[in-house]
């Protein structure tokens, strides 16, 4: 059996990469992709503990997380399309209508 610690370390790595992507990038689409990376990190944790305890519950919740990721991607991409129509940009730092 693969040690559960390895899964946790991989999950931490993917989570930090995803957070870096959200904080660093200007392109909104790449920010959404980084969110997908973070959701995958959470799924790895769920699956690792499902393996450790031989319980299928973790995998069930991973399925829910994937369904959530689909909903989030659909709404996020629709927002991006609407914003691009409105402002002709996909850069997060140029969408400053609510800034003082």
């Amino acid at each position, binding site marked *: 059996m*693969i040690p559960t610690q390895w899964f946790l370390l991989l999950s931490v790595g993917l989570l930090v990469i995803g957070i870096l992507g959200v904080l660093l*990038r200007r392109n909104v689409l790449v920010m959404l992709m980084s969110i997908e990376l973070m959701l995958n990190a959470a799924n790895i944790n769920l699956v690792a503990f499902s393996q450790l305890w031989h319980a299928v519950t973790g995998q069930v919740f991973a399925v829910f997380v994937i369904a959530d990721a689909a909903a989030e991607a659909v709404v996020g991409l629709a927002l991006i*399309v609407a914003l691009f129509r409105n402002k002709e940009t996909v850069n997060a730092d140029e969408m400053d209508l609510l800034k003082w």
Partner: protein
Amino acid sequence: MPLSHVAFLILSAVALISGGLVVTRRNPVRAALWLIVALFSVAGIYLLVKAEFLFAVQIILYVGGIMVLFLFVLMLVNVNVSVRQAPFNRQWRVALATALLLLAELAYGFWRGAAPRLKALAPVAAPSHPLGNTQAVGMALYQNYLLPVELVSLLLLVAMVGAVIMAKRRFD
């Protein structure tokens, strides 16, 4: 070292490297393609822990559905402009410090708390009933988690309606 450990190390290295490339590539189309590589290696990890149903869902839904959606939208918005612009914003010092702080915090918590406790945990004996993985997940989904399944279907419906309305309407 058993073969599954070697496979896990290779797959996780591929996932981490391609994840890093997603964040650093200037062209969003390349970032999307590297994300597909990362998703495939995570799917391989699911296969290593014998979660075949999740493996199939990951490939069909993530790679086949969500990433194709991403690439569609990338073709709709203007990619050529963002290739010429700076990929990172001006707050990169603060962002880097925040992420490294979070990494240090998680690593500290991991070495102090999780790792010793996980080592102390006795591995649970595998159940004797020979239920296949897909069958077991299906039984759990439709017996113990029926209400969450219905809620997720409602969530997907709301997301679909919202996406249609937002993509259709003109703001001006």
